[in-house]
């Protein structure tokens, strides 16, 4: 099965919203991590495992800790060629 790929930012934001069980309207590139309730330590593990499963992205713990806002996560997807 091929890896997931987003052709635009809207699709990626929808995926992030679903991942953190957050209303998509509340997920914008400049949304800080602390405004996403489920982006806690368990949410971080969930994020790391989903990046691994769906995109083959292994995000180390220290790099994951550096994510401060939704846009930082979009950058991770872009750097790995998973978001146009």
């Amino acid at each position, binding site marked *: 099965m091929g890896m997931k790929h987003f052709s635009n930012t809207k699709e990626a934001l929808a995926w992030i919203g679903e991942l953190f069980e957050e209303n998509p309207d509340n997920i914008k590139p400049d949304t800080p991590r602390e405004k996403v309730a489920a982006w806690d330590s368990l949410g971080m*593990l*969930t994020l790391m*495992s989903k990046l*691994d*499963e769906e995109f083959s992205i292994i995000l180390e*713990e220290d790099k994951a800790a550096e994510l401060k806002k939704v846009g930082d996560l979009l950058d991770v997807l872009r750097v790995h060629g998973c978001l146009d």
Partner: protein
Amino acid sequence: MRFVFVDEILALEPGRSIRAVKTVKADEELFKDHFPGFPVVPGVLLTEMMAQAAGKCLDAERNPRGKAMLARIVSASFRDWVGPNEQAVINAEIKTSQPKYATADCYVEVRNKKVCSAELLFAFLPMERLAPGYIDEVLESYLNRQK
């Protein structure tokens, strides 16, 4: 009742897959409540069977990251009832495994029919947090039989 939801491991490839069995006996008190006149194994216990089996599969790697602990039920579905004294055959396949997390696809069969499935996320607890001398008797029993 003891909180041991794997009776025996049938097959194990450490860190990759496991097949195990569990039978909840008819004399367990829980069946008085779940449910009167219609005793069935609770879905939470079927989920626990899958979590314990997948956890043993990860623990069998003897990885220094520690003991696998269920962190999240990503998804779970229940398709059929499991009654008292019915043998549940538990299957788990590890999908991802990294120092901080692992994920597993699991399902339970009864009479060769899939009765439930789950996707589970695990975190790891340092072994020193557990009681000194702690061992997983079911896992050790299986590993000793393989020697």
